[in-house]
């Protein structure tokens, strides 16, 4: 499970001075910083196990920031991106945000602004990571249920307003008693203390959705 301590800030800018100044400033603030002088270099050298966020210069020769954003999507590099640009226009920024960028900062920007963006990005990243984690957990537990138990669990999650044993029994054409037995097994196997928790966890993780 990742935490703020091992998150990295990836700075991609063709300007050496920008890279060095940003690397220094962020380093003093305690961030792990890695710099790349071009989009191509980032794609070639990025280690997928390292998580964090990307500070990306929009206007670069050969492959600009937007193109790199596309490439990252294709290659499932799921890092939040903060665009920085020397001549950022509104159309470019809109497009970048639409594609999922955290923010679009015009050079020169205040360090505080950048740090806020990084923190937001990290928050978002951790949240996503956590969701992915609980989803995977739920999925694993769900996979251990019998077929009948899966049916009962699915019905409960999809119809949270009618969770009485009668309703479930009528729907699945089994006796309420049997339903009670299955429900107890589901809660036990899924590691839930109540039906309410089950429904809540499943809806959050997006299971059955």
């Amino acid at each position, binding site marked *: 499970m990742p935490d703020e301590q091992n998150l990295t800030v990836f700075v991609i800018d063709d300007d050496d001075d920008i890279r060095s100044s940003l690397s220094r400033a962020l380093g003093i603030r305690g961030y792990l910083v890695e710099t790349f002088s071009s989009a191509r270099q980032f794609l070639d050298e990025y280690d997928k196990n390292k998580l964090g966020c990307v500070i990306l210069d929009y206007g670069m*020769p050969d492959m600009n920031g937007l193109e790199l954003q596309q490439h990252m999507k294709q290659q499932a590099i799921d890092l939040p991106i903060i665009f920085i640009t*020397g001549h950022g226009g509104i159309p470019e920024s809109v497009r970048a945000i639409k594609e999922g960028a955290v923010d679009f900062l015009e050079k*020169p920007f*205040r360090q505080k602004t950048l740090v806020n963006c990084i923190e937001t990005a990290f928050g978002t990243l951790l949240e996503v990571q956590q969701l992915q984690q609980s989803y995977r957990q739920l999925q694993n537990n769900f996979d251990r249920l019998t077929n009948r138990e899966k049916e009962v669990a699915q019905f409960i999650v999809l119809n949270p307003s009618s969770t009485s044993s009668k309703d479930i029994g009528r729907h699945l054409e089994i006796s309420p008693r049997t339903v009670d037995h299955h429900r107890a097994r589901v809660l036990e196997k899924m590691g839930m203390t109540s039906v309410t928790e089950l429904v809540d966890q499943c809806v959050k993780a997006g299971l059955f959705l």
Partner: protein
Amino acid sequence: MKLSLGVILAIYLTGLQLIAVISVVLISYVSSENVLIDHTRSLLSDTGHNVIDHSKDFLEPARSAAELAKRLTETDIVDRENADSLEKLLFQQLKTTSQFSGMFYGDESGNFVYVMRSDDVAEYRTKVVRTFATGQEASFVWRDPDYNVVEREVDPLDVFDPRTRPWYRSAKESKDFIWTDPYIFFSSQKPGITAAVPVMEGDGTVSGVFGVDIEIEALSDFLAQLKIGQNGVAMILTRQGNVIAHPNSELIKVKNKEDTLEFVNITDINDEIVQAAFGELAQSGIASLGQEAQSEFEHDGYGYVSTVIPAYNQELPWAIAIYAPTEDFIGGIKANRIRNIWIAVFIALITGLIGLKVADRINRPVRDFASLAVLLSSGEVSTSDDIPETYRELKQASQTLLNEVVQRKAFEREYGVTFDLASRGMAQISPNTGRFIRTNAHFNDILGFTAKEMQGMKFSDILHPDDTDTYISFQYAVHKNVEYNQERRYLRKDGTIAWLRVNAILIRDEDGKPLHTVATIDDVTSLKLSEEKINELSRELSHFSRINMMGQMATGLAHELNQPLTAITQNADAALLTVSQSANPDPELIEILEEMEEQAHRGADIIRALRGFIRKEKGDSGAYDLNELIEQTLCLVHPEASVRGINILFKAQALPNAIGSRVQVAQVIVNLLRNAIEAIVVAELPTKRIEVRAEANNGMIKVAVEDTGCGVDPDIDLFTQFETSKQDGMGLGLAFSRSIIEANGGKLWCEPETEHSTKFCFTLPVLSMKQLENDNA
């Protein structure tokens, strides 16, 4: 005016025969009248002499009877003293000559024997006067034709004395035969005349006188029987002008104051015609007339001829006067003449009609020829049709004409086809009114009128209201025999403007008279419009490039400046953090660092404001035809290229419309072309060529500009601002161009060099539905 042959022939033919007929009639008219009048005159003259002869013959017996009695008594065969023998002599002579009314003898002694015809008691009566010393005795004896006495009577009171009578005295005085003047016989009351001859003694004295009374009323009868025409009249006149014989014997006797009958004078006669004929003559004196006198006169509207023949001699003491109306002699002729005139008129009419017919017949081939000529020239008859039969002379002429027409038709057809099918507009224009005589389809199409509509229009009708001097200069040029050649604005039927290049000359006939103006017309509207478009683009480009070069510099500077400014702020921030985390932070240093960071941000704000200001000048965005744009920019650059001997090649191929700002893209193309031109000028190679290509691919249009210039300096980053290989360049062109193309959604790059060629390419998005949707969003 020239008359037609037919009319001339008709006039000549009918006119000639009319003249001939009229001449003949006129000549015969005049000559026959003269001949007839002459004839009348001689007729009158003959009649006169006839009357004279007749009168002489009539009177001659009286003369010879008197002479005979004289000789018988002078030779004493008859005793003049013996009254009985004298009576026998006189009786015998009287009995044998019927016109004698009586014979008598008187002597110097006063004795008198008188035998006369009688119509009472007996047929003859004798009066004898015997003189005695004491007196005289008169006795009367009536006898029958056999001389037997029927009755006797004595008149003692009779005092008749022969010696006092005019006839006695005249004869005794002249001692020769005489005629007395005519007079009215007392006893018979008839006109008569007495012939008297004296009986001479041996000593030459007169012993007595024999006389013969002869009645001349018979002469009037004779005159009445004479035929002098129908109304001619002959008269016998005395020296004094007394009328003694006239066909109407009643007219000649009038009573005088003593209540005795006497002859009327010709001036007093109750006959106006006679007075008109001879009155003048009578006044001048008939006696003085020496010879036959003829005259003509008019009375009451009629013409007359008259003649007077004097015959004063022993045989006849008279004059003969004759007149006759000329009508009697030439009346028939006149009637005949009128008939002749009618006949002549009739003949003239007939011959005139024949003349017309003949003229028509002579003229028909000529007329046919003439109408053939007209039909040929108007094209209603084909030249291949038969020529109507005509004269040999005309045949040749018509053949010549036919050849001419065939030639002319061929020419006209050729001209007409050329005119109608010409790829340029053509028009024939009236030189004076400017009316369109003929226009070809192409010209009609240019203006959008039908041929029929153009027929009624004038050159001035299609002028653009702002180009009013066009027609004046047009007319001036063509009438000065100068070729008119100008591009002006004209109006189409729908009111839109057409730029026409009109080229016109005036066609004149052989005499130099203007026939029509021939104009060739080219529609140069699209040319004019594209010229205008190019000019507009040029204006836009210069404006755009002025503003945008500045903007580009500002943008470029902003980018360039923002990088160090960013580094400064980051570094300042890092320093600030470092200082503030130190054990003993220096507040002054912190303030300096904070100020430094603020100033860097202030600089960035200024640059941002400047960029925001410039960003507004982008040019209109939209869909446009890239081929057209390339052609227009080529036109702009062409002067610079051609002056340096550089050939620019571009072949347009079908392309979809591009989307973006055409002015910006035009600026990029111009930039690339100018770079190419400069590169070629620097290289000084023999081949000086720029090739431009545009092709559509994958929803983009790719434009390539390739030159045979000096190539690219490998040490220079082409697209970095303020880097340049040009001596006087700023190093903005390509960077600027790239930013423009990227702003328009495309890319600009330099393709790897091949030998002797440098190739810059850029792409532009194609107008698509997706593009439209995005734009709308």
